[in-house]
């Protein structure tokens, strides 16, 4: 799959998330300037709350794992794997994301590597 140019660094919010639309799917993009890598992209749809809200959650770490907490019912989703920490077998898709200068580029993770099979 090709990298797609989604937005610029200007559109991101440091320490937090924004939503983007790629091929009709909603993606939550998180920008953590202190981390390496600084960008993370997972599905915006919260499978437990049933609404597109993960980009609006609080980012942090739980036992060293980078996570976002759903703003609806506060379950944590890993920014690296998309797995839900509280419920086994629940996860959200993950995208590959990188910065090219100030451009934010995104592409789907190969299906084999994605827990949800997206």
């Amino acid at each position, binding site marked *: 799959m090709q990298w797609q140019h989604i937005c610029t660094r200007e559109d991101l919010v440091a320490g937090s998330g924004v939503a983007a639309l790629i091929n009709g799917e909603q993606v939550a993009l998180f920008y953590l300037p202190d981390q390496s890598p600084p960008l993370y992209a997972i599905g915006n749809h919260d499978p437990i709350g049933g*609404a597109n809200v993960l980009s609006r959650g609080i980012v942090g770490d739980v036992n060293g794992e980078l996570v976002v907490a759903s703003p609806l019912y506060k379950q944590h989703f890993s920014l690296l794997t998309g797995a839900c920490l509280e419920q086994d077998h629940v996860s959200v898709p993950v995208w590959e994301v990188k910065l090219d200068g100030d451009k934010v580029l995104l592409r789907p993770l190969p299906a084999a590597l994605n827990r949800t099979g997206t």
Partner: protein
Amino acid sequence: MTDDNTVLPTSGNLVIIGNGMVGHHLVKTLVEQGDASPWTIHVFAGENRPAYDRVHLSALFDDQTPEDLCLSPAQWYRDNRVTLHLNDEVVEIDRDHKTVITAGGVRQDYDALVLATGSYPFVPPIPGHDHENCLVYRTVDDLDAIKRCAGNAKRGVVVGGGLLGLEAANALRLLGLETHVVEFAPQLMPVQLDETGGALLRKEVEALGVHIHTGMKTELIDAGEQHTLRMNFEGQAPLETDMIVFSAGIRPQDSLGRQSGLELGERGGIVVDNQCRTSDPAIFAIGECALWNNQIFGLVAPGYTMARTVAAVLNNQAGDFTGADMSTKLKLMGVDVGSVGDAQARTAGARCYRFQDEVAGVYRKLVVSEDQKYVLGAMLVGDCDAYDTLLQYMLNGIPLPDNPASLILPAGDAAPALGADALPDGATICSCHNVSKGAINDALDGGCCSLGDIKDATKASTGCGGCAALLKSVVDAGLEARGVEVNNHLCEHFEYSRQELYHLILVGGLKSFREVRDTHGKGLGCDICKPAVASILASIHNDYILEPEHVGLQDTNDVFLANMQKDGTYSVVPRVPAGEITPEKLMTLGRVASKYDLYTKITGGQRIDLFGARLEQLPLIWEELIDAGFETGHAYGKSVRTVKSCVGSTWCRYGVQDSVGMAIFLEHRYKGLRSPHKLKFAVSGCTRECAEAQSKDIGVIATENGWNLYVCGNGGMRPRHADLFATDLSDQQLVQLVDRVLMFYVRTADRLQRTSVWLENLEGGLDYLRQVVIDDTLGIAAELEAQMEVVRERYQCEWRTTIDDPQKLKRFRSFVNAETPDQDIRFVRERGQPRPATEDERSDLIETVSV
């Protein structure tokens, strides 16, 4: 008396007459001894409900129900194969046939019989005492009768200024009556207190608006002119009232003893020996109906000891009742009163030390033996902090320190507080359930690791609760000795409680989460500590919460300044101070709601909530609202929400102050204050309390002379009536106290802890809060006020700041790379308004679209 050679019954039918606290304790003790009990137990109760906690009867005037006070439900009796006959009083004991007979005609044979019939309230035989508005205060039914009667009454009189009389007076006060207490003796609580203590108590009680009349002998009760009844006194002007509650002492309920010819005392009471046996060896008497060594014990703890004695004897074990300590500690109308041992210094040669602080309203008296080696007793009014220590000195015969007066002098003079370590293992910590320090340590060794565990395992502090503070210190010391650390850390990133972190941030002058984390924490933070730190920073500095360094810390509601709903849309609540709104503004709300098709609902806080706004619509909606003069309502924040009000003296026939004006003033004063949890206020214009101020964090009720302030109430999941904090305040005094209470809460509460729970967990409770806020014992009052001033000065309408900043508005986009709204947000219409589509409805809608 009994013949010691008589063979006791050892099995068969055990009949217990009376299901009060003591009767119940006997059943419970027997049941807990295991299945092997040779006794088949039958309990007969005159009341129509199983045993309940009579000591805390007045809690029924707060937020408790009779069920809350129940000691064990009827099902517990069934589960333990105890036959419980409720509402069927025993009227006769046939000793010849060893049978009891009830009013309902039930006959039950017994092999052993226990009388636990308790006592009845003494009603002096004053002519007119049998009027239907003359009541007593002893049972749940009595309380119901008092409540019913009070519904039509304006003024109530309690006859009797003792312990129970003052409890009853407090009940009348809580029911909103003008309350009077009439006492025959020249002072209040003549049994427990001396003249000085009585006078101090009187002053404190009068400050709560209760009228006290001492040295009054009632001669006649007849019809009144202004009120239902008139009380006529010997040599004094009469007093009119709508109801009278008699609480002039108790008398042992010994009528069955009298009927069946058991030996009675000269002034009543069924005579018992050290095994609690009556003159009939098959019959025992325990509790307030029993007369031991010419004494009636009118407290629950000695009754429990008697119950345990009888349980032992019935099981063929040694049991001995050899009297009981009558020390007691309680809170009467918010005033602490304690009496230890020989408080009246009646022992020959007793010497006294006295400490009196008329400013703080504290009186302490220490009674020591002639040789000044031991504590004989103590009297405490206004502050019972020394009670536990003094009681332990007295009970355990611990030698006095060199300077005995230091035991009752203010703590600043280095009172040698008796730490948990200083107590011998045998020291009784909980006298209701006879739990010693050794038993507590055994329970800790057995795996208990918290105060709650200990209470469950030993029942300590589950009776009168008087030993709660001492128990906590014994448990804490025990845990510490076992290397257990009590963890109240905020989360994995901060090894501090919220309160500790607050002080670290304040003292360190820290301004951002990054600084706080780098100085005191680890890791990146999480959804627990980030909003908590953001809230603390806001309480201290009150910066705009969406500054770049704060934005990632906030819950979504704070980030988007609106309340997220289940479908990811938001609701919008503009501030409507005190619920007062002009027709023009009301129409603006209607127009905006209609334009954006928002579901519209009136809130409980007298505002209007507009639901179903999508993220990208929020700035557009707010632009219109701000243009019309609205400002943000902070419904999204852990912060001051609304000040609800009734219409007050401006319109209402009954109002005595301008409640709306005060509510608007308070709402503007405190809007924007970030706090550990949301804060709700209300102001009522008179005692009818239409604004329901007593269910709020801060409640204000108008009086003829100013304002009464109530604090730490709550509606919601666990309702709690607010506590009356101070009375008849001027506007200025009111604001000063509210400033201090709020800031002290902000400083010391745990994260997401409402004021009600905060107060309940505050060591020292309401009294401590009064000391800090009113008496300024910590010397921080000026600091608290100054900090409130900072917060107030920096107030900004967060929506106006946001609307004015194009950078900030960038966040309110559905997608960074598309203008389209979120297609998954779907509404259907119900009762003429939109609502989120359910999952089924949504799939139907999407199909319709795709066709």
